[in-house]
């Protein structure tokens, strides 16, 4: 009951944030961007054509009405029509989400599990050679541009060794695996650096707590302490870190998709950038923000479920 009340209160608190996000996007796309009609119609458009188009796009209405349109789209997910493909943007998003998720979801689950295991391992050997080695390796991995990993892995494994398809996509399991495995591996390599670094810190924070000393004094084995006590207590920051990343899975792996020709959401954004398709970019800005806000709320609620010490008001 308390959880329900808490959730409802947090939901109410989301409203001002949604209004705020809509306002930032409205300022960027409706005020700063100005009049997009010359881009759409070219230089030789007649005044009448411009007027008509402005009316069609709702640009002749007051700024307040235009702002309310943005707010409305944040709730209804009705983002209008793409300028370049003339399709409904919400339809495009739904149809292109599937390829994105077949790439990012498995990669995300595998890389998170891997990273937690590695950080448990180095937490066990904390302060010794292997721990230092992993720490330095993480920083080194993080210091290379993601673009370089993609270029190199694609060139080496797909082009040079011909182990994987260079690019393309086929829907349906297991057909897509031939195309998503290599980008998935790159995703894992990219995430392991920051993930292990974060999880290791979280676990080391717990390892020096009094309760761990007590457990050790009771004569528990170090492995039992790590798995039963440390991991459990480290769960709160780990959950936050993991859940907060989920919205980015929906966004798709922008660069990976474009390099490997996977027709996902990342590709939609790239096409929109190349064809100056403002409504699509705007839709993605709104959509990803809303998803982010919602997942933030889920994290907060999970927090309260996992850790009873967190006060519910």
């Amino acid at each position, binding site marked *: 009951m308390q959880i329900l009340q808490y959730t409802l209160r947090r939901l109410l608190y989301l409203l*001002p*944030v949604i209004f*705020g*996000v809509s*306002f*930032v*996007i409205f300022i*960027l*796309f409706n005020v*700063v*961007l100005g009049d997009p009609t010359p881009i759409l119609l070219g230089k030789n458009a007649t005044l009448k054509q411009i007027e008509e188009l402005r009316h069609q796009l709702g640009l002749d209405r007051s700024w307040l009405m235009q702002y309310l349109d943005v707010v409305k789209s944040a709730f209804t997910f009705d983002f209008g029509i793409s300028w370049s493909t003339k399709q409904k943007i919400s339809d495009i998003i739904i149809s292109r989400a599937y390829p994105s998720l077949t790439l990012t979801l498995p990669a995300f689950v595998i890389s998170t599990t891997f990273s937690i295991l590695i950080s448990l391992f180095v937490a066990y050997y904390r302060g010794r050679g292997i721990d230092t080695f992993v720490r330095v390796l993480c*920083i*080194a991995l*993080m*210091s*290379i*541009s*993601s*673009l*370089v990993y993609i*270029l*190199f892995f694609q*060139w080496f494994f797909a*082009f040079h060794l011909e182990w994987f398809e260079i690019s393309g996509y086929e829907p349906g399991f297991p057909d897509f695996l031939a195309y998503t495995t290599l980008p998935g591996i790159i995703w894992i390599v990219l995430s392991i650096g920051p993930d292990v670094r*974060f999880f290791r*810190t979280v676990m*080391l*924070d717990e390892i020096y707590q009094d309760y761990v000393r007590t457990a050790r004094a009771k004569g528990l084995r170090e492995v039992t302490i790590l798995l039963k006590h440390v991991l459990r207590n480290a769960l709160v920051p780990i959950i936050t870190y993991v859940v907060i990343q989920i*919205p*980015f899975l929906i*966004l798709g792996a*922008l*660069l990976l998709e474009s*390099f490997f020709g996977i027709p996902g959401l990342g590709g939609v*954004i*790239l096409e929109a*950038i*190349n064809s100056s398709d403002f409504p699509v*970019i*705007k839709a*993605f*800005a709104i959509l*990803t*923000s809303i998803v*982010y*806000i919602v997942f*933030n709320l889920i994290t907060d609620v999970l927090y309260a479920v996992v850790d009873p010490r967190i006060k519910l008001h």
Partner: protein
Amino acid sequence: MKKESLWGEALKKIVKDKISLFSLIVVLVYTIIAILVSLGVIVGDWHQTVGPNYAPPSSDFIFGTDFLGRDVFKKVIYGVQVAMSVGFISSMISIPIGVVLGATAGYFGGVVDEIIVWFYTTFSSIPTIMLLISISFILEKGITSVYIALGLTTWVHLCRLVRGEVIKHKNRDYVQAVTAIGGGHARKLFRHIIPNVFHVVIINASLQFQVAIKSEVILSYLGLGVQEQPSWGKMINDAKQELTSGYWWQLAFATLAMFLIVLAFNILGDALRDALDPKLKGKES
């Protein structure tokens, strides 16, 4: 007195540790190169054709040449200036916003705090990559947009940190002492509290530099970045066509140049945090 000893001690700690000292030297060398390039002292002639197309690294061209026969070494050096300026100018945009908003929110509390917290929650709710793309897409393509986009996306984290620190400091004895001798809000905030929490800004800046440098590469790939000058992002991007023909040097040397400075900022950021703020150790990022 305490402030000086804190910074002095921090510097001593960093110089003592070989890896941190190395990172500090890398940052200084890159900074000097960036200043020299900005002043036009070196590599002003990067755009000249100096040899055949795609000459591999040799004693004539230590990093080889690109598709127009330009010296890759000069382009890499020019890239130092682009990368450092992206880090520096975007920090110059985000630091004032982050510090002023964060300090005001933390110090005054109440409604002011709530409004500012709402403001940064709003900004942090828009995924950084989408905000970056939107801003640089709307503004005219070029390096100025990259500065502004990065500046406007990175202040949030700093604002949150500064706010937290100011809240911790505002009721401390030294601030009350200033009240006792008749110091007003402005004096307390700007002369006393902010200098005492400024280490947060420095630590954050060293992390922000590497984020900025990495983002420039991504934006350049998306065609939203630097247009007329050579940058590491553009060089890495060129490699997309070059690798299959075996022209590896642009990719390799741009990556190496970037790797060194990002690694240095990463290590330096950690070292600064350990030295200046032991309590924060490992909590952030």
